[in-house]
């Protein structure tokens, strides 16, 4: 029987394989700890902390502005993009995408992974 970590890694691997527009991804805790790091590079700890901060602020903004439950954040940089998806308030899925990525496909796949991770975590 697969461990929780293996199940999370499997979802991330499947998502990564879905489109070459996804450059890296990870699952992070609300405390800013990395649960599963498939981001590549050596910025995992900082990415986890800042991703958790982004999620917390986004949650706060959605509550303050009364726009319902926080679901996702989309940041577009000049060279690439960052997406963050809430996972049942227990974690967040962070994804980096290439410039000019097919966001329709990325979001479709990412939301499916978000749902799967919600059942695992």
């Amino acid at each position, binding site marked *: 029987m697969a461990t929780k970590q293996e199940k999370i890694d499997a979802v991330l691997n499947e998502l990564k394989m879905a489109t070459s527009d996804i450059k890296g991804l990870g699952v992070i805790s*609300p*405390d*800013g*700890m990395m649960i599963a790091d498939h981001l590549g590079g050596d910025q995992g700890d*900082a990415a986890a*902390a*800042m991703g*958790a*901060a982004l999620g*917390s*602020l986004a*949650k*706060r903004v959605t*509550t303050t502005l009364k726009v319902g439950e926080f679901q996702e954040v989309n940041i577009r940089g000049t060279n690439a993009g960052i997406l963050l998806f809430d996972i049942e308030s227990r974690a967040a899925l962070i994804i980096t995408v290439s410039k000019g990525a097919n966001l329709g496909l990325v979001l479709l796949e990412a939301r499916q992974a978000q749902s799967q991770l919600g059942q695992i975590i």
Partner: protein
Amino acid sequence: MSNLTKENFIKAKVFTRFDELYAPLLPTIKATVMQRQNEITDTFYAELSKDPTAANIVAGRIDQLKATHKIWMDELFNGTYGDEYFERRYKIGEIHVKAKIAPYYVEVVTSYLRRAFAETLVQQGPEAVSAALAILDLDAMIIIGAYHEDRMRRMSEVTGMNQKLLETLMSFG
């Protein structure tokens, strides 16, 4: 919430060997300091009243504050500095925070008291002065700790980030 400040209080006592070097000495210098308590307290409130902001804070309740200050000074020299002492001092910090007294005033008042205690105890030798300064420093640390924890709590409320995450983020600074 006073865990971080309490941890620091315990660590500071160990670091300065407070319980071994200073705690036993403090009750022996209590009488000397308390003889000057009225003068020290009166002078410090007179100085505070010259500052417009502080004068507003203390206006109309100076007698009450002086009585509280006397109790606070008395307890400085009671010889026991465990959990109960910490909790009473932390409560004082929380009262300062709730009253929106800027931490600057805690620092300048502590500075004034350090000089007043040193002048009072100089005849009794360096150990007496060191003991009085050591407990004053611990008290200031606890009160400033209450400010720090209040700021972290408010930052956590405003941003939605838990305190562990805030500490982690600051570690990248």
